[in-house]
């Protein structure tokens, strides 16, 4: 290796250390995507790329050996919980926690703050999913260990948002000016709230498609506007996807509806199938935070449009990056 490449490598390392010191992720809570600047999001996404080979099991690291993650899931989850646990294991750390709160003292009436105090004393980092909005923010007030929000009710889901951004950048190389359609339950869907904000931060072109009763809340629309994006709204999916680059579909979430009749009225309003995708760009990618129910026909899985399973995998490298950053165990 020539002296020039050594100097180049050294400068790159210095720059990296400078950014890292400026970012100061160690011990930090990740509650909302809004807690992160665009510069910090870029850093996380860049660092996540480095984790892909470890996430696939192609590389091996014990960077978080001796560290313990508390995985507190007060609500059901498949991908978020498993990918967090896989991420911690891939980094050489250990996981404690629960996926069923009925087997914990919460059943006896214990408050969330008390449960958090306990988990804080047993572990180095805490991941929490909870049905009440603001639960992760509250947890952060009672724990010294960093809190990673894995979804709080219909509120925020920052790690899903980061993996969604990672997926779009991996496929499209950029987010700016990408035409993104957000579809489905935009009222209660926490992933789309965080994502609409983040996509606006990057200057994407947004279209919201939903049944009338499940429209994007005005707070979210206002936030997008404050960031300089003018999202358009429609109920016509066919028209919306015509020149779209990304179609991000969400499930109509039965568990968020206060009224079963209201749910029955809107479930099945939209369905993505090969017939619909005939009108779409060849390079349109279809994303979904999963689980899906009826909104994407399984026939789409076999088309180049389907990206949701790769998107789900991306949860591992992105969460590895976050765990590594907040615990100070960078690779």
């Amino acid at each position: 290796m020539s002296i020039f490449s050594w100097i180049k490598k050294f400068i790159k390392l210095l720059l990296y250390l400078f950014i890292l010191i400026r970012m100061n992720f160690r011990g930090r809570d990740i509650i909302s995507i809004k807690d992160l600047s665009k510069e910090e999001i870029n850093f996380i996404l860049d660092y996540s790329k480095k984790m892909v080979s470890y996430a696939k099991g192609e590389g091996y690291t014990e960077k978080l050996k001796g560290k313990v993650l508390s995985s507190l899931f007060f609500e059901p989850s498949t991908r978020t919980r498993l990918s967090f646990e896989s991420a911690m294991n891939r980094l050489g750390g250990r996981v404690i926690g629960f996926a069923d709160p009925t087997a914990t003292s919460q059943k006896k009436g214990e408050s969330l703050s008390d449960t958090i105090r306990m988990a804080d004393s047993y572990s180095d980092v805490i991941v929490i999913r909870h049905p009440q909005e603001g639960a992760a923010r509250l947890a952060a007030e009672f724990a010294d260990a960093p809190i990673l929000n894995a979804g709080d009710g219909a509120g925020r889901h920052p790690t899903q948002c980061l993996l969604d951004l990672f997926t779009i950048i991996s496929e499209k190389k950029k987010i700016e000016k990408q035409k993104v359609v957000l579809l489905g339950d935009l009222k209660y869907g926490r992933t789309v709230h965080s994502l609409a904000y983040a996509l606006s931060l990057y200057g994407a072109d947004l279209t919201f498609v939903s049944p009338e009763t499940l429209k994007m809340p005005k707070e979210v629309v206002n936030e997008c506007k404050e960031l300089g994006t003018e999202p358009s709204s429609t109920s016509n999916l066919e028209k919306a996807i015509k020149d779209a680059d990304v179609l991000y579909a969400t499930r109509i979430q039965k568990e968020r509806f206060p009224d079963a009749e209201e749910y029955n009225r809107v479930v099945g309003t939209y369905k993505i199938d090969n017939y619909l995708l005939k009108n779409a760009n060849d390079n349109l990618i279809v994303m979904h935070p999963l689980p899906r129910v009826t909104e994407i026909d399984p026939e789409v899985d076999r088309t180049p449009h389907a990206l949701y399973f790769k998107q789900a995998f991306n949860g591992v490298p992105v969460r590895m990056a976050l765990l590594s950053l907040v615990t100070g165990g960078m690779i």
Partner: protein
Amino acid sequence: MKELKIPLIKSGTVIDHIAAGNAVKVLRILGIPKTHSSTVSVAINVRSRLGKKDIVKVENREIDPYEVNKIALIAPKATINIIRDYEVAEKHKVELPDEIVGITHCSNPTCISNYNEPVESRFIVLSKDPPRIKCHYCEREPEDIAERII
């Protein structure tokens, strides 16, 4: 001689420049008449140079800053005059602080601050006039602030 519609008070507080129609909400925030036995005079839709306004006169009670913050949520342009011996001894303009703690409940029924947790409600002030606040926990903007005053 111009006749006063509501009489001067010897001591107490005069809340002036309340947006017309909001005097009753101000009384509710101050817990009047529940917490107060002296005379309270209310004038609604009083004509002034700047249009219509409401005025509240509370006898024998000087409103403290904590209560002033509560009023600022629904009457951001109000002035508080502390009266001692028929004279204006102090005059304050109400102003929303940057953060409001323990004054109003979050209107979101699924916000964690409405559950059995040892925390006070906390709101970030987004705009002082018109008042807009956002829950620190769930990040929602409450719909009717006056209805949620603790």
